[in-house]
């Protein structure tokens, strides 16, 4: 390494790789239900798609976590997104294909994708 610019580039690249290790201070939390029901319904690829999308966009202030059964097994895979103030949006029947749009529209721009939420699907 021969310059400050190279050091900065390495730092920025590494920062995204250790983003999960932050105690609090995340702008948003994406939580994927990964109990038996979720995994059976395909939560694992959804989870992977979120991680990949967050990583490529270098969203270091967003954390993707898994949780146990959320209790609405008929809607799995279920994903909950928590905002800074703790407000929660619940997405249901999530597939890897839906993930880029959720990330672009909700996580980055702050507008939930209403048609994928539980409100639009529970009727």
């Amino acid at each position: 390494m021969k310059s400050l610019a190279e050091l900065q580039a390495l730092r920025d690249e590494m920062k995204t790789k250790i983003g999960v290790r932050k105690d609090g201070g995340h702008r948003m939390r994406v939580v994927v239900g990964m109990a038996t029901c979720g995994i059976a319904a395909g939560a694992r690829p959804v989870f992977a798609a979120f991680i990949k999308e967050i990583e490529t966009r270098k969203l270091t202030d967003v954390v993707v976590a898994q949780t146990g059964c959320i209790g609405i097994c008929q809607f799995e895979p279920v994903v909950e997104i928590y905002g800074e103030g703790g407000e929660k949006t619940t997405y249901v029947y999530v597939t890897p294909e839906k993930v880029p749009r959720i990330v672009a529209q909700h996580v980055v721009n702050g507008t939930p994708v209403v048609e994928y939420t539980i409100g639009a699907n529970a009727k």
Partner: protein
Amino acid sequence: MVRSHILVCGGTGCHSSGSDKLYTLFESELAAAGLGDEVKVIKTGCFGLCALGPVVVVYPEGAFYSQVGAEDVKEIVTEHLLKGRLVKRLLYTETVAEDTILSLDSTDFYRKQKRVALQNCGVIDPEDINEYVAYDGYMALAKVLTEMKPEDVVAEILNSGLRGRGGGGFPTGTKWKFAAAQPAGEKYVCCNADEGDPGAFMDRSVLEGDPHCILEAMAIAGYAIGASHGYIYVRAEYPIAVKRLRIAIAQARETGLLGGNILGSGFDFDVDIRLGAGAFVCGEETALLNSIEGRRGDPRPRPPFPAVKGLFGKPTIINNVETLANIPRIILNGADWFAAMGTEKSKGTKVFALGGKINHTGLVEIPMGTTLREIIEEIGGGIPDGKKFKAVQTGGPSGGCIPAQHLDIPVDYDNLTAIGSIMGSGGMIVMDEDNCMVDIAKFFLEFTVDESCGKCTPCRVGIRRMLEILEKITAGQAVPEDLDTLEGLCYFIKENALCGLGQTAPNPVLSTLRYFRDEYDAHVREKRCPAGVCKKLLSYTIDPEKCRGCTLCARNCPTNAISGELKKPHVIDTAKCIKCGACIDSCKFAAIYRR
């Protein structure tokens, strides 16, 4: 794609309670569960809560698992990592709330701490330079090389108010300024990692948890004073620290952050390690220089000070590990940021190794000005088994014992000196009613007598005479005049010894004489040890009223000192008794007393 990190503490405390095995077990269990690619296991430095080790933290949840055993690994993997369910029974109890985990920062142990020197310990993988870089590692060096002149660096450290953490408390900026003012030419930067005080492990933890910050700081110091070579003097008894330093140096050289023309600036700097053989006196800076040069580790008279004539006769600065750990953070955050922490004359934070009769044995870093009471009662969790606090010892063999009446003073260099102790390098040993203060003073003096290099008479002969008097006192053979002789010797040695070892060796005696004179008097005049520690002053007796004549004590006595008929009161022959206490432990009727 990594979604979760498992941090396993690799500090010496957790290492010795088996954290190495956990690390490999996690890897194999993860592989078996098919999670090898998603979950990364990282060995970090010390988290501080050594009493609860081995410590494992799982992110992104930040779940803090304590006292994790080999048998728990599988459960953490299948429950937490596979199914997303916390293993509540292993969580550090203070972090468990109704349905979430609370941040570690909210626990009593961490709430009042402020991590500056330890900021990366327990956070990064110390064997991976990239992780250090991710937390702005080497950015301070880059800033110095690209934006600051050497005199700006010295000024920044001066303005921060940083004082040496190795015990002396000398202003670091002033030391650097002296060395920088010497004519250009060969100069050296030395890191003192000899840490020999009994009970101290602050520096070891920094080296084990964040070795790169020391290399970065030494390079910054080199730039500031015009040196291009540095030595780390570290004791060979710290194998993990030495190994991680070696890895760090190799990685820094490979990346070009040590070596020639660093970051294209034209500045050269490299670091070598010298291993110490574990003599306490080699931590004294001039003895340390002799030792690096390959001579016997004896102190040299000062002046000339090392900043003028140090290693190989060249201008040299010697700084303690913790002092150096603060440097990159001061450069990045500014002198004002640092000076905003602490008291008027002691800025920043101080790391202490908490030990002795305290619930949370471990490593804590507090802003200067925190009171001893906050450290012991809140952060340290108080004294175990409901016992009563008696004293806290700071500064190791050079320091003193502080009694309960001074617990509310804010900790800083000047306050601790004013009450007869010293800040020292950060050992803090808590004592309760079961500790005998004369015995404690004797313990430290035995240490200094052993470690005295013998070069000057006041120390070689004087502290040995002091120890002999203490041995007389604890054996019940002293007369009141001995206390006066003892005190006189203390002052004489303080004034006449050549180096800091001898000059400070009387401190443990002086401070206990000052605050616990009654205990000395009890030993000397009444031939009694109030805490029941000094064996030669104890006697064991059986209460004939309570004794049922069960013969249990007689059968347990290793010297057959107890006699008596079955169902009749027994007696102890004090001539045969070796005061081991086995009889007290065996008696079911509490009929035996120790006085």
